[in-house]
């Protein structure tokens, strides 16, 4: 009998600490599969965030940094510029990337740093117990927006993929979701493209992944998938928002 499905080489076979129904597991697996498929695991270095995925340095089976909150793009910049032959990726949540790390991601993208960013957007701060994130939707209840996000007070949610897509520096920016299998398949395609651009030395790449957080949304995983589709996708449209032109090394 032939083994046709196995644990990716790029993932350490460990029981993770993620909540039941959390989509980090799915996203970790996709990243690991892409690293395996491109044959780059042995020269890949990941940078873990502060957030639910803080222990990602245990889960990915490659060399890993643990960065301080928000600074993963700066850590990756230092590493990639010093060892351009390494494949660098950061894996960040909405607090890490869109709040405290706003400046670091902006400038890494603007400089066109040639690493890959996996941005997990679940519209809330998971690890610290469900506070409002820059990506929390209007009216969404969190522990620091107990009456619902008041956009008159704290503004509208931040759309990172759109923001970064306006930069003039070539880059690959895509937004995907993981609430249904068909969307997961598309998500993996985007993540694979992102890593391919890095392998070819083309440009900066970022994939924003709309994800669920049943625990802090106060819903079952199934309800969360429905909530994501109904509420997040309209505000955070899916698709490829930016890709390098042919002259910049993209597809012709």
């Amino acid at each position, binding site marked *: 009998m032939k083994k046709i499905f196995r644990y990716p080489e790029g993932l350490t076979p460990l029981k993770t600490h993620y909540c039941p129904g959390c989509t980090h597991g799915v996203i970790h697996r996709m990243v690991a599969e892409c690293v395996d498929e491109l044959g780059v695991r042995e020269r890949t270095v990941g940078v873990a965030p502060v957030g639910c995925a803080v222990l990602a340095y245990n889960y990915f089976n490659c060399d890993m940094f643990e*960065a301080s909150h928000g600074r993963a793009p700066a850590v990756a910049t230092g*590493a990639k510029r010093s060892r351009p032959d*390494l494949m660098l990726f950061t894996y960040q949540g909405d607090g890490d990337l869109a709040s405290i790390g706003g400046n670091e991601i902006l400038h890494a993208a603007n400089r066109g740093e040639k690493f890959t960013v996996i941005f997990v957007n679940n519209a809330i701060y998971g690890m610290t117990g469900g506070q409002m994130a820059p990506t929390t939707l209007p009216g969404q209840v969190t522990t620091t927006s107990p009456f619902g996000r008041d956009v008159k007070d704290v503004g509208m949610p931040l759309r990172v993929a759109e923001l970064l897509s306006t930069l003039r520096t070539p880059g690959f920016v895509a937004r995907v979701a993981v609430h249904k299998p068909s969307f997961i398949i598309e998500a993996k395609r985007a993540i694979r493209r992102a890593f391919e651009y890095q392998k070819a030395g083309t440009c900066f790449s970022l994939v924003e992944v709309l994800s669920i957080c049943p625990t802090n949304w106060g819903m079952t995983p199934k309800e969360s998938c429905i909530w994501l589709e109904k509420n997040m996708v309209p505000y955070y449209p899916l698709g490829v928002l930016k890709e390098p032109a042919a002259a910049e090394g993209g597809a012709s």
Partner: protein
Amino acid sequence: MAKILMKGNEAIGEAAVRAGCRHFFGYPITPQTEIPEYLVKRMPEVGGVFLQAESELAASNMLYGAAGVGVRVMTSSSSPGISLMGEALSYIAACELPVVVINIVRSGPGLGGILPAQSDYLQATKGMGHGDFKIIVLAPSSVQEAVELVGLAFDLADKYRNPVIVIGDGMIGQMMEPVDFPPMRDPAERPVPAYALTGAKGRGKQIVNSLYLDPEACNQLNYKLAAKYRDVEKNEKRWETYNCDQPYDILVVAYGMMARIAKTAIIELAGQGLKLGLFRPISLFPFPYEALRETAGKAKLIFDIEMSMGQMIEDVKLSVLGEKPIEFFGTAGGVVPSPEQVRDLIRGLNSRLS
């Protein structure tokens, strides 16, 4: 080889290159901007990497990334920018990575002024960031010495797997002095450290991390670091004395440029028969407590002079342990005491002694 007349900041940049450093991440801030401006041109000449980061916060984290993949790396900044690096330095020390940081100190606190000061002593030696860690701090008092201490900084950073700060008051960065450089060191001679993240090829994965949720594991890390710092204290104390081979009534204690100014005053007054000595700490951490205590033992009075409101004086007090009276004079804001001013102060103290 003929000496080169060079601005301190530029000499510091060149010294890093000579020490085999090929990676620099920094940000402009007066009075050290000449360091990145020098290195942006010099690094390409030696096949090195220069990047102007978006902030000192980012630059210090780039240092973490570069050191983590195994290269010699440096940043430079001045006081307010160094404050921004505190977070990263705590992480770097916890992960036991070597980095070199140049602080060309300006007046503070807050935005302060751009003129020289010595008001980052406590920050560098005791308060660089959260948690139990130390930074090795070296204080030059001439451009030549700055060149030597930069080279030493890289070696100590590697030896102890720890950040090292070379701290110069703003004058060191801006003044021009003749300087001799050591020969160029080939970065290829430095072996890739075992802890470096080079990709998990032919070995298991490695992690550069400072998260220790398990209290016993965190406890063990702290004991390990503390033992390392005790080694540093045992081996790396550096200081210089002047005129202490003959009897002295007053022992002046000063570091950096302040020591140089004080020395001028001491030379003049010693020529007039006053009995004066100078103790100049070169390593601010580890502070040469024992050497100062022994040297102070022969004096009647210690005179601590700093361009601050009194920071090194805390370590001077720890050296002396109440056994000698300590007088202090300090200035801030970029007000630099002149040799004449220092001379008059010492003379005044001396006349009160007899």
